[in-house]
């Protein structure tokens, strides 16, 4: 964000109680609380006992087993939940995933390393570039070229990654608001997402399935005036974001549906293997970008927002704040990005320039062999992990020295989060399943792979 943006957000104070970037930096707390403190009068209103629901008249019920999904209008993800319900209360549930299984890991074994990128686009398909980057870094680690990546390429990867993170969170929050009845935030947030996707479309040629990252860099340099356009979009976006926040944070209906629902303790979340915004909602400030910096993340100042209770509202608040933090990173990246090549100059890894391919036999052969045989990766195995939209996105790759992975496994955060869904909705009402499931942000493409 430029200084003008900062002053704008600072002066407008759109997000009630939500700390602005300046406040966060001023505080200098590594893990700040994302849960906003509401004005006392509002808190009193919210806690007004008069408004509490009248105790239900207990009707005799017996447990009933019903299906939710796999094709359910209210869940944004193809999942089947077999519920045992007692009236409106969930007594037991069996969460079944796999409806979007596409054999990603098996397909990867038949594809050259470069051909895997389009498959990674379809993992978490609301932040495809983060998957691109994660996979590329894994292969690069195995190739031993992580330290030699062109700086500009690393910055571009950070920029497109953070844009993707914002779109990921916007989708999650917008859809969750819509699922509990707030249609307006959804439309506004998707509008912002669309601005960002238009930027990415200009850069990569595709709105969703970008396949933009390459082993050793990225496919092409930023288009002209990309940085300026990005700044302008961020400026507009932060306003809309504040408007959306104001619709949600003080919204009685929204708070009632989110507060204290789907609560999980930090210990449990760690035990389940949670990472990302979901883990941070429980108060654990673990962020791969901060704790194990990759690319150029150690050059940026940003904070890791955490929640306190680990309920649905904390997951909303953490994501809202992370969008702001991503904007901070983008702002710094836009300032720092150096000029230079965007692809490593290493003919056995990166494609030669097209002009050379058409005019010299050497580059023609190089191009041909990279396409037909793939990039020869030395034998070995690697686990490389990055901060994806939903948490720690890990790729475990075994190479036998050929141009195709011998084995490729994805540590998909969605899959791990969905494991705990059954526990989260135990004892909740049927209607609580939808926001809880929504804020875990299970993305079928990533979960089922």
């Amino acid at each position, binding site marked *: 964000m430029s200084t003008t943006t900062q002053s704008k957000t600072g002066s407008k104070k759109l997000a009630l109680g939500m700390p602005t970037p300046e406040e966060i930096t001023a505080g200098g707390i590594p893990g700040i609380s994302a849960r906003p403190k509401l004005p006392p009068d509002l808190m009193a209103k919210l806690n007004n006992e008069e408004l509490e629901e009248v105790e239900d008249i207990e009707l005799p019920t017996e447990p009933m087993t019903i299906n939710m999904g796999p094709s359910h209008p209210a869940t944004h993800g193809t999942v089947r939940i077999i519920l045992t319900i007692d009236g409106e209360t969930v007594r037991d549930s069996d969460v079944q995933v796999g409806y979007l299984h596409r054999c990603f890991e098996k397909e990867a074994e038949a594809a050259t390393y470069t051909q895997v990128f389009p498959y990674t686009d379809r993992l978490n398909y609301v932040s495809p570039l983060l998957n691109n980057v994660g996979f590329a870094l894994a292969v690069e680690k195995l190739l031993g070229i992580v330290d030699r990546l062109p700086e500009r390429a690393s910055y571009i990867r950070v920029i497109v990654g953070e844009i993707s993170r914002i779109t990921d969170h916007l989708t999650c929050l917008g859809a969750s608001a819509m699922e509990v009845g707030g249609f307006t935030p959804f439309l506004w947030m998707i509008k912002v997402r669309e601005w960002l996707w238009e930027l990415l479309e200009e850069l990569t040629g595709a709105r969703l399935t970008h396949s933009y990252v390459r082993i050793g860099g990225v496919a092409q340099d930023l288009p002209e005036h990309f940085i300026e356009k990005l700044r302008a979009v961020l400026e507009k976006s932060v306003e809309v974001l504040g408007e959306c926040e104001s619709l949600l944070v003080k919204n009685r209906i929204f708070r009632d549906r989110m507060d204290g629902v789907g609560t999980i303790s930090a210990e449990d979340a760690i035990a389940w293997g949670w990472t990302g915004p979901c883990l941070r909602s429980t108060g654990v400030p673990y962020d791969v970008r901060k704790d194990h910096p990759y690319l150029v993340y150690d050059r940026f100042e940003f904070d890791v927002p955490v929640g306190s209770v680990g309920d649905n509202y904390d997951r909303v608040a953490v994501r809202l704040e992370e969008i702001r933090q991503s904007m901070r990173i983008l702002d710094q990246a836009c300032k720092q990005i150096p000029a230079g090549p965007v692809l490593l100059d290493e003919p056995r890894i990166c494609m030669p320039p097209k002009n050379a391919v058409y*005019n010299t*036999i050497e580059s023609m052969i190089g191009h041909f*062999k990279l396409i037909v*045989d793939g990039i020869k990766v*030395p*034998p070995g195995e690697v686990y490389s992990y990055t901060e994806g939209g939903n948490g720690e996105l890990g790729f475990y790759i075994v190479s036998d020295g050929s141009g195709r992975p011998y084995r490729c496994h994805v540590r998909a955060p969605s899959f791990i989060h969905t494991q705990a869904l059954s526990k989260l909705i135990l004892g909740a009402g049927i209607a609580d399943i939808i926001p809880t499931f929504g804020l875990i942000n299970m993305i079928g493409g990533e979960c089922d792979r």
Partner: protein
Amino acid sequence: MAETPPSPMKSSIAAALRETQSPSPPPVAPPAAASAAPAGSAPSSAPPPSDIVTIKLDGRDVQAKKGANLLEVCLSNGVDVSYFCYHPGLSSPAVCRQCLVEVVGQPKLVPACFTPIADKMEVNTATPRVLGIRRQMLEFTLVNHPVDCPICDKAGECTLQKQYQDWDHVGSRSSIPKVHKPKMQDLGPHIVLDAERCILCTRCIRVCDEVAGEKQLTMAWRGDREQLTVAPGHQLDNPYSLNTVDVCPVGALTSKDFRFTMRAWELFSTSSVCPGCATGCNVEVHHAQGEIWRLVPRENLQVNKYWMCDEGRFTYKNVRHKRLTSARIGGGRGQPAQITSIDKAVAFAAERLDRLASGGGTIGLVFSAQTTNEALFALSQVAQKLSTRGATIRTYVTGTAARPERADKILRSADTNPNAAGAKLFAGTGAGDASALLSDLKAGKLKGLWMAGGDLPLTEQALFDAAPLVDGLELFICQAVHDSPLLRRAQVQLPAAAWAEVDGSFTNNKNLVQRLRKAVTPQGDARSHLELIGQIAKKANLAQSEKWQVSARQAFLQMVASVSSSLPAGADPAQSVAAGFASADWGREYLPVQLRFANSRG
């Protein structure tokens, strides 16, 4: 990235291919191309210890036979050295200079393919000096190479591409325009030369000289104008000419039959045996989209070494053309046959066969030398059952006609049947030949005839003339791959699968039982001879669930057990046909190998 380590995938595929593709045991004694056999790899045939010397190869002690080719020692010890002109089946002229390595104590680098090893030799193949020279040689080779990969038939299996990517992978420093040479020079009936692509390795010249024994190719001109050529008024025309295409490391020599039909990396390879003659050259069937696109020789030092004849390469065309694709019944005696299902035709045949056998009729069984051992074995089993039911059985061995003019001392044999040895074995000692069959038909000695294979050693005219002889038969069952005048007179006409469509084995003229593998699915309703025989036997209550009716592999196992029961295991195939079965092996089942994983051929 530093130097790419040798790709284990490539070598493991090569090893797997070698393992799965040679159904016969390894050669007992090194054949003519003995220098090709990796030194020290076969302990049984290893020379006395005094001949073994120890050399230091990249700092590692390696033992090999004294005087062995240094390049072969390197390759057999997993040390990757690039080369173009060397070929295991040919002499080494050391013209390409690509295999230069450092021998400690020698001032200049030496070509590994032309250096015999001596005791205590110290060889370095990966020093900066060697790698630099290797890269510079590639740079030289590429200076005049055209930018043809997208339209070149060799692309994807090209040795030059592979060596460049493995060892060079940097751009050229030359900006001089490339020398142009003829792009499409017709060298002979099967081959076109693109002189620009040629890297002057002379492998093709040596194939003609040393394998075919015809000195037809030579190099003309000098320097960067040097090019491959034939003498004026002459052609590259010998029975082994297409081997030059296989050994060509680039796409300079291309087969007229294959060029511009299929990209190499889209092909699948299934190992099999050429059905063209009794030699049984080991081949790779290259197929894709359910069609065969070419046959190439597969290394087997006992049979065909690295080569095969041109005629054999075109045997795949018979799999495509003039096929019988559906069953027909009720033909013969001037009546047109009706197309029907296989099951109905089989039931029709079985019912009449049963009636004829129970009535004590004489039935002729034709063992075709074009079919697999398993089908022949099945027919011999059926013959026994038919005779116990009361029928008199006469057996005949037929096949395609011998062509003495094609025989030579290299690979081609006069017998154009791939399995004459097997057919004779299973037809029994009293079997007649095709002329006996015709005279028996003329004399009316047969009431029924069952041909498992429709080939007769007759010209088309003779076959047409002889066809009416079968009209006197009460029952004529004919299983055939191709349509023929004889077949059209059969009461039961059954479509049989061709050699590339079945699993099975052929016995060659050296009594080696060699494995055929199914490359493509049978055309139309066609089924293997073995399957058709098994179904007729089942319907006619001759055999219900014998092992040979289950699968080709079960038939093979039962056949080997029954043929070689009295023989010691590993009997020498040179002694008898049956002894060949004693050492027969079905081999491992595997999926077709995708050539995109093969990296390079030639």
